């Protein structure tokens, strides 16, 4: 009872605070403005992403170029989340030996032949789709984060199908670190050559070409590799966590 009253009180306080702060905000009004009006932000983006950057996908132009620094922060957040998860689930070697090194959680049932064969066929297709999505990030919907997540689902399929499917942890960590480093180095190149972090090169190619948009596809490829390896590492950590002995 007391708990319920406390929850109600908290909800009321939060509600009043939210109402107070948003009371004068013009909800529902078109604050972005119409696309035709050249003074608004959306019009600026829609005008400049095809004309000066030559990227067909305006969202990618915004994410990687106009606010690329923010994307670097997002990648860092993902990295920190993966690191935090690994450190929570980390167990020392001696602990495992004490408990007789019993099997991970996932080793319980054998998958059927159908599933194993199907996973073998689907795995490369899923990887290919993921790579396609992040390579075409500046042309079609999708990009580094989405492509990376698709690749990680491919690895998840293999993890749950084959009992002892393992990825080489060292290679994954190296790939992840190197792609993150490459992102920062590209940013620093912009800083050194053109005076601002992540500044795009002036040569941006032709609209709708695969190699266009200057550094955008390169950055998105690195983001894709980074996200894919990071999520795969997370899955690997989760899958190989051993049950605690009661």
């Amino acid at each position: 009872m007391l708990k319920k009253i406390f929850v109600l009180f908290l909800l009321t306080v939060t509600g009043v605070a939210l109402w107070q702060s948003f009371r004068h905000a013009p909800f529902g009004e078109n604050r972005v403005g119409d696309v035709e009006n050249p003074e608004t932000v959306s019009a600026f983006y829609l005008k400049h992403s095809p004309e000066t950057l030559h990227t067909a996908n305006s969202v990618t132009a915004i994410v990687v170029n106009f606010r690329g620094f923010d994307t670097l922060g997002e990648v860092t957040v993902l990295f920190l989340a993966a690191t935090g998860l690994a450190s929570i689930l980390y167990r020392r070697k001696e602990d495992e030996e004490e408990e007789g090194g019993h099997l991970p959680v996932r080793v319980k049932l054998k998958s059927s032949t159908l599933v194993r064969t199907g996973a073998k066929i689907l795995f490369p297709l899923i990887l290919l789709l993921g790579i396609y999505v992040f390579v075409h990030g500046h042309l079609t919907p999708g990009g580094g984060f989405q492509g990376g997540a698709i690749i990680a689902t491919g690895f998840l399929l293999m993890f749950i199908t084959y009992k002892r499917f393992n990825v080489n942890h060292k290679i994954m960590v190296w790939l992840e670190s190197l792609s993150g480093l490459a992102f920062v180095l590209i940013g620093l190149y912009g800083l050194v050559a053109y005076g601002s972090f992540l500044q795009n090169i002036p040569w941006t190619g032709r609209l709708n070409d695969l190699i266009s948009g200057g550094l955008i596809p390169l950055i998105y490829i690195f983001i894709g590799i980074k996200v894919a390896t990071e999520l795969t590492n997370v899955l690997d950590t989760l899958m190989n966590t051993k049950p605690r002995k009661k």
Partner: protein
Amino acid sequence: METVLLILHYAGLFLILLGSVFLFLGALGIYRMPDLYNRLQAGTKASTLGAMSTILGVGLIQPSWFIKLFIIVIFIALANPLSSHALARASYKAGVKPIITSDTDEYAAVADEAGKPKTEKNTQTL
């Protein structure tokens, strides 16, 4: 050429309509069927056919997309029955009983054979 495109257009529209009907029936089946196995088969069969014919219909209306869409159809044909099979098998192993129980259980013998924690044959490392 014009007439061919027109015929393709209407064939595509018909396929999309057919696909929508099957998708609707699949959703209805998931809602109405009594137990897990019935729902699985309603959902999978109807949605496989529905999605495939919808996508093929789009391919007929827009012939330049046809190859890409055909690859998606192949992917669905591969992945959809597979996932349904895995789900049904997992729920059988987990002990989910169908709503109408009978004495015949032909899968039991096979399942016992396959379910044993055998040797580590199916290992693969990448």
